[in-house]
Structures are given as structure tokens and as C-alpha cells.
């Protein structure tokens, strides 16, 4: 590794594990397979959700990922959010124990077409967000399959209403999002963007220069994307080593450490 790399400790905010519908031929979706690919790309740790939970059964997906994460301390389990009203997710009043037992510090809300939630529907999430706010739990908004980001009003209400919930958003691609993101970064210190869909040339340099090094979070969208895509984006970025460390994993590591289950 030359001076542009240092000894980065990548921590992936957006990684799937286990079976899903359209795997790459030959993909090893097991824990062992994931860890091998992480090693090849130089990724130290990953926040993993069960890929099956995106379109499949949420209860079994969350159970599955909790078991998977116990196999390696490099994997941090992430649960998909569902509705406690229909019994697919623990009621907030009773969620602390199963989340703590599973070691879950990040919850993931999939939004957009063919997702559990068509949009950022805050009235349906108020109880859970209150629970998360008390514990500083991280909310990952998975909008990578949606045509557009959640509405600005909904995002602003979320960030205003639950200021202790770090909100990380992943989007499909860069286009049309900067005007929204920049406005939110100016107003809220607990809003973060995950990099796998934020692919524009110079975005790491520009965002870290304007807003500091702790607003972007490394993520890969594996296995839909390969690990190397965002790894190279970060490795080749023109930023100082401290900033690169924050983007690669330092910021997310801090957020995980601040969760109090």
C-alpha cells in the first residue's frame, strides 16, 4: 500500500448476505464467501442485512442475519424494519431485548417501488423512531431501488423529529440528489449519505471540503455491486488521510459505538 492508501479500515454500511433471487452465477452468498470477498477488497467489517429480507419474508431474514453475524465479529447485524402492527417486527416497547440479544445497532428501511414501504411514511414509524431515538440507533434508508430520494419534507421531518437517530441514506444514483443533500447537510449534523450510489466525480472531495469528513459513509451495495467499486472511489479520492479514514469507516464506527441498547 502506498501513501494514498495508508491502512484504511473499511467498514461497509450496506452489505447483503445470504440467498436472494438473482445471484451472480457462482456467487458464494455464505458468510465464508462474503468474508473472502471482503478480504480481497480490503474491507475490515460490514454491516450486514439478510438479502432475502428486501423482497422476501422479513421475520426469517432478520432471524437469519442475527445467526450469521454471530459467526464473525467482523459482521454487524442489521435488521429490516417491518410493521409491528402486523406482527412482522417487535413492538417498540418489547424490541430492546431481541435487538440487544441479536446485537443489532442499525435498522434498515427499504423504500420505493416493490418495497415494504412505498415512501418514507413517518406516521407508521413514529413509535419505532422514538425507541431508536432513545438509544441512538442508526436508521439506514435503503432507497437504492427507488427512482428518487424520499420527499424533502419527509426527510426534514424525520431529522427534526428524532435528532438522536443518525440517518444514513443510500440512493440508486447521484442524479438529482445533491440539491436535497446539501440543504440537509447544512441543517442537520446527523444526516449521512452512503457512497455506493453517490458516484459523481469529485463528490467525496466536494462534500468533505464543504461539510467536513463525517458526512459520507462508505458502503458497497454488495452483492448487487462489487466491493471494489466504492473501495476504489475512496482510495483514489483527493482528500487527506484523516478524512479518508472517516469516510472509509471512522464515522460509521463512531455511530455504532454510540448506540446504547
Amino acid at each position: 500500500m502506498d501513501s494514498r492508501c495508508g491502512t484504511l479500515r473499511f467498514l461497509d454500511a450496506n452489505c447483503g448476505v445470504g440467498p436472494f433471487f438473482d445471484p451472480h452465477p457462482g456467487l458464494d452468498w455464505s458468510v465464508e464467501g462474503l468474508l473472502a470477498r471482503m478480504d480481497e477488497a480490503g474491507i475490515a467489517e460490514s454491516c450486514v442485512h439478510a438479502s432475502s429480507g428486501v423482497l422476501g419474508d422479513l421475520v426469517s431474514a432478520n432471524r437469519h442475519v442475527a445467526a450469521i453475524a454471530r459467526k464473525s465479529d467482523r459482521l454487524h447485524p442489521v435488521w429490516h424494519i417491518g410493521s409491528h402492527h402486523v406482527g412482522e417486527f417487535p413492538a417498540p416497547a418489547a424490541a430492546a431485548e431481541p435487538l440487544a440479544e441479536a446485537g443489532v445497532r442499525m435498522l434498515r428501511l427499504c423504500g420505493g417501488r416493490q418495497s415494504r414501504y412505498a415512501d418514507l411514511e413517518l406516521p407508521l414509524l413514529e413509535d419505532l423512531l422514538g425507541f431508536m431515538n432513545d438509544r441512538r440507533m442508526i436508521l439506514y434508508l435503503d432507497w437504492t431501488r427507488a427512482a428518487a430520494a424520499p420527499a424533502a419534507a419527509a426527510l426534514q421531518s424525520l431529522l427534526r423529529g428524532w435528532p438522536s437517530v443518525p440517518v444514513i441514506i443510500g440512493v440508486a444514483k447521484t442524479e438529482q440528489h445533491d440539491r436535497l443533500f446539501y440543504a440537509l447537510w447544512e441543517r442537520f449534523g446527523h444526516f449521512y449519505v452512503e457512497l455506493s450510489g453517490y458516484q459523481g466525480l469529485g463528490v467525496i472531495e466536494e462534500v468533505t471540503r464543504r461539510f467536513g469528513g463525517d458526512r459520507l459513509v462508505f458502503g458497497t451495495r454488495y452483492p448487487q455491486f462489487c466491493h471494489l467499486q466504492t473501495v476504489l472511489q475512496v482510495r483514489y479520492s483527493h482528500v487527506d488521510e484523516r478524512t479518508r479514514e472517516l469516510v472509509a469507516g471512522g464515522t460509521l464506527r463512531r455511530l455504532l459505538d454510540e448506540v446504547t441498547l
Partner: protein
Amino acid sequence: MRHGSGDRGVGSGPERRASLRDAALRAESLERFGIIDFHVHLGTWALSYLPVRAGDMLEAARHVGIRRLCINGIFGPCIREANDEVAAFAARHADLVVPFAVLNPYQGSMTEELVRCIREHRCRGLKVHDFHQGMHSPSIREAFPEWDEVWEMCARAGLPVLFHGVVTDEDVRRHRDTVFVMAHGIGNPERVRRLADRPNLYADTSWSQASPRSLLDLVRLVGPDRIVWGSDAPLADFAQRLAIVLDSGLDELTQLKIVAGNARRILRLEGRD
């Protein structure tokens, strides 16, 4: 014009971790690999706030070690001015920039503008884009028979046509000596499949949702000799877009065809780099 052989190059095994990938993982300059980016724009557009300007883009390309950037001016509303701007930029950075012309049938004779771009600006390719030029396929194609002359002229002059819209399947079939490169072809496998038997049809890799998997699908459709690597910069990061090739599991020779050799061949750059 020499077209691809159709050889399939999907590889695996011990050679799959090649030196190109290793160099990238170390964030070294990749200049020695002669990488050519076939799909780069000059300027800005409405959909994204683009933090980099042209000079920054070149600096970023040099930092990664991209050897050549094929730059077009589709973002410019005035075609003549856009071509002049690209040409001036290419002249200032002749070591790096390969100028591509843009055309628009609503702004005068396309063939005259193309001749000007070839003779005065030494453009080595043509980019056509329906959306940015206010043109809408397929009507824009049908309404202006002059496109046939444009395609013929490109064949005679050895200019590949990088197309996003405008070009029809029939164009690819009828104009056999014209090299047509489907922009974002990696994200349009159905259309690539329809035209896969046409040796003058190429596809580029620029697409925001591209992955090694989509590249392997493309290789299976048209073989490794008719794919050129493109980033779509400044809308995309050079290194991020290179990764789909480097992490594909294709052997290094095939990777080098995609990121360098195929483009060098259709741009007739042999011996220049």
C-alpha cells in the same frame, strides 16, 4: 475496418487477480495500462450538481492514470460552439483528450458540421444523444434522412459513432462499415442482444447500475472485442467505474481489451500511445 472476432473471454482461475486490479487496489497510477475512457462529457447538466470543472476532471483522470479521454460536448445547446469548445480543450490537452463531435439536425447541415469537425478540429469520433439535444427517437431519425449521410461519412473517415438514442437498429444493419457504439449498452442487454450478430455494433460500460455481473452478461452477448470502457464522467467517478472491469474475474488480457485495446483499435490510435 476491422471488427471484433466474437471471441468469448469469460475467465476464472488463478489469472483472475491480475496486476491491473492489484495496482488499482494500491491506488497506484494506472497509466502504464493505456486506459481509454470512451464516454466523457465537457460541461455541466441540469440533473446533477457537478462539483468538478473540466480542469478538475483532467486532474482526476491523471490521478487515476487514465491515458485518454474521449470527450464530447453534448451539454452545449449550440452545437457549433460546443464543438469549438471541445476542440479548444482538446488542443490544450492533446496528450489526454480525444475530441468527439456532436451534431443536431435542427442547427444546420450536419454533414457540413461534421466535415468541419474532422478537418478543423481533428475529431476522432461522433457522439449523438437524443435527450440533451432536444431530439427524440425515433422521430428525429426518421425526420432527417441526412443521418444516412452522416453515418456514411463516419465510415469513410473512420469515426466511431457513440450513440444514446437517434441510431436505429436498421441503421446498424444497413451501415455495415460504420462502427456504432451503444452508450450505456451494458444496461441495455435486450437491445444489444437484438444486434449482437452485427459486427459493427459495440457497447460501452457506462451505467450507474453497472456491476461485474452486467459486464459478464455483455461479454456473453457480444464477446470481449466489441466492448469499450466508458465512465460517463463527470457524472461518474473514474475509479468507481473501472472497478466493474477489474473485479469481473475476466483474465487480464480481456480486461485490457475492454479498458484500452478495443477503443484504441476503433479510434485508430495504434502506435500513438
